[in-house]
């Protein structure tokens, strides 16, 4: 049963993607449904297995490594698989409005959407350094394809810049893989580490792979491509880019440092990775505050929030690990909700320039509410998923007496309050100054309500994550990285 569930996670969306691409038209909706709807069932089966045994692994078609590809699931991978599936499904509900699966335009969109879902699931399942490279490339190509799907000049430029940098990042990663293989003679993420030590070549390889992944995940100061890309993509695409695509690269950095190099990570590097995170939090937040466009503000907020994921390195331990993972989860939900709400605002008002959105809440009450609720989680106010993760992270910083990190976490929260209250104040301003766009290409009222409800669901999920964090935290504590185990 578990083997079928694991295979389904990758192959159902992949086959559906091929089907939608090959046979566009009336059947499109059916293919999309067949590719996405069974995924939660697969995950329920998988969750049962992980809860029972801790980890699940599978050698595909019975070929053991090195020639075969082995998949491996632990609680961290499982939680990201859940997030990816929920985002693909729920944001997909929103995307179905803008890109009807039976239309030609929709067919192209859904083929890429399903490919992206499949590639990210495959990445999360992989335990093989080279296979991870392959899935990373697939994720990048599918994500950029989605980003430029409407052919808008700004999106094309942003996509091109993203692609050049992402290809460069992949090369650095691949060079690191080549060096690791030359030293360890294996590509298995969990075996290679045991055969290596803190010598020059393995550390060089680790640094090369990390730099490549930092480019792909847009961690400060390599974030320059992100705001334009996430700020100019179609709404549902921005949501999945910010919620998942950049996170899977950070997930890989975690895997490299905390699993592969658990015994030989250079000590000097951990605070440096943390400093990148602190830089991201402060710089991203200040730039988010300075943006004139709402969507660019949300994009810069992603730059800032990614910084918290890098704080795992200086705050490493059971607390730090659960905190960072929970942050990944709750930020994914909240940020997806935010991008969808902003996308609705953009569709109705024809612009997302803040100076032309005064009083837009009358026209868009649901989306303003979503923006506020998602903001609660990004800020880290109780009761939200963001609060749980920030609280745990503060405890972790307190426990190691890392006062600098503590201040950065608190300052990040304050700055987030500043940049999130500004658009809310504008949206609710009286008297209203904004006028909806004349050339209304906006969705129908029913479509708007539909999109608003989908976005609200995600924002509420981010809040619920704060009310009932216990199951996820317990699961994570059963799958701590080697260095954090008691």
């Amino acid at each position, binding site marked *: 049963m578990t083997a079928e569930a694991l295979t389904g996670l990758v192959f159902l969306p992949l086959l559906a993607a091929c089907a939608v691409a090959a046979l566009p038209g009336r059947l499109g909706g059916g293919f999309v449904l067949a590719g996405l709807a069974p995924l939660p069932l697969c995950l329920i089966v998988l969750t049962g297995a992980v809860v029972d045994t801790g980890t699940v692994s599978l050698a595909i078609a019975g070929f053991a490594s*090195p*020639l075969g590809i082995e998949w491996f699931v632990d609680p961290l991978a499982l939680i990201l698989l859940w997030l990816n599936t929920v985002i693909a499904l729920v944001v997909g509900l929103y995307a179905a409005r803008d890109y009807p699966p039976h239309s030609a335009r929709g067919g192209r969109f859904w083929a890429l959407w399903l490919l992206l879902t499949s590639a990210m699931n495959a990445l999360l399942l992989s335990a093989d350094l*080279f296979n991870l*490279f*392959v899935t990373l*490339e697939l994720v*990048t*190509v599918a994500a*950029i*394809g989605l980003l*430029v799907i409407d*052919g808008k*000049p*700004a999106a*094309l*430029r*942003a*996509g*091109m*810049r993203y*692609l*050049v940098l992402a*290809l*460069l990042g*992949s*090369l650095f990663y*691949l*060079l690191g893989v*080549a*060096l690791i*293989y*030359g030293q360890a*003679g294996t*590509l298995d993420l969990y075996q290679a580490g045991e055969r290596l030590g803190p010598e020059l070549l393995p550390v060089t390889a680790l640094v090369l792979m990390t730099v490549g992944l930092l480019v792909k995940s847009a961690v400060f100061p390599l974030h320059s491509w992100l*705001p*334009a890309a996430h*700020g*100019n993509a179609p709404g549902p695409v921005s949501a999945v880019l910010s919620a998942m695509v950049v996170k899977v690269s950070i997930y890989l950095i975690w895997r490299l440092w905390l699993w592969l190099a658990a015994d030989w990570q250079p000590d000097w590097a951990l605070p440096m990775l943390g400093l990148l995170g602190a830089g991201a939090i402060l710089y991203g937040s200040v730039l988010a505050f300075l943006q*004139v*466009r709402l969507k*660019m503000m949300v994009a810069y907020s992603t730059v800032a929030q990614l910084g918290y994921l890098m704080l795992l390195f200086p705050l490493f331990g059971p607390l730090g690990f659960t905190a960072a993972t929970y942050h990944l989860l709750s930020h994914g939900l909240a940020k997806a909700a935010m991008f969808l709400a902003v996308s609705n605002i953009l569709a109705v008002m024809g*612009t*997302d*320039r803040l100076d032309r959105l005064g009083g837009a809440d009358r026209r868009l009450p649901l989306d303003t509410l979503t923006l506020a609720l998602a903001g609660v989680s990004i800020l880290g106010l109780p009761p939200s998923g963001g609060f749980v993760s920030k609280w745990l992270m503060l405890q972790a910083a307190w426990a190691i007496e890392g006062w600098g990190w503590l201040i950065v976490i608190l300052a990040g929260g304050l700055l987030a309050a500043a940049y999130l209250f500004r658009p809310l104040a504008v949206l609710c301003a009286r008297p209203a100054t904004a006028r909806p766009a004349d050339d209304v290409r906006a969705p129908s009222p029913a479509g708007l309500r539909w999109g608003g409800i989908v976005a609200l669901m995600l924002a509420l999920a981010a809040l619920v994550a704060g009310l009932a964090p216990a199951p996820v935290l317990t699961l994570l504590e059963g799958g701590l990285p080697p260095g954090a185990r008691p």
Partner: protein
Amino acid sequence: MSHAEVWVVAAAAVFGIGLYSLLIAAHLLRQLIAIKVMGSAIFLVLVVAAGPIDGALDGLPKALVLTGIVIAISAIAFALALLVRLAEVTGSTSLEDDADDDR
């Protein structure tokens, strides 16, 4: 210098040439070619890693290089298609004159 060392030095030189061109090139086509050149250098490193270990030849890196070439070609093909579209829509083949706030 041993056989392997010659190859590694060659790979480093090719990688350096690619990286240098990538940094100075403004035209996107040049940038993509530079990335391709860097990729070839990495394949060279992988093939060197495949050198005889304990007398036996390791076949896996060769399989990796083959897969890598396929991926590189697909990625570059996608990049070229994107570049053509970018040139059609914006009339520009570089990202120098970038304006993100054109809404």
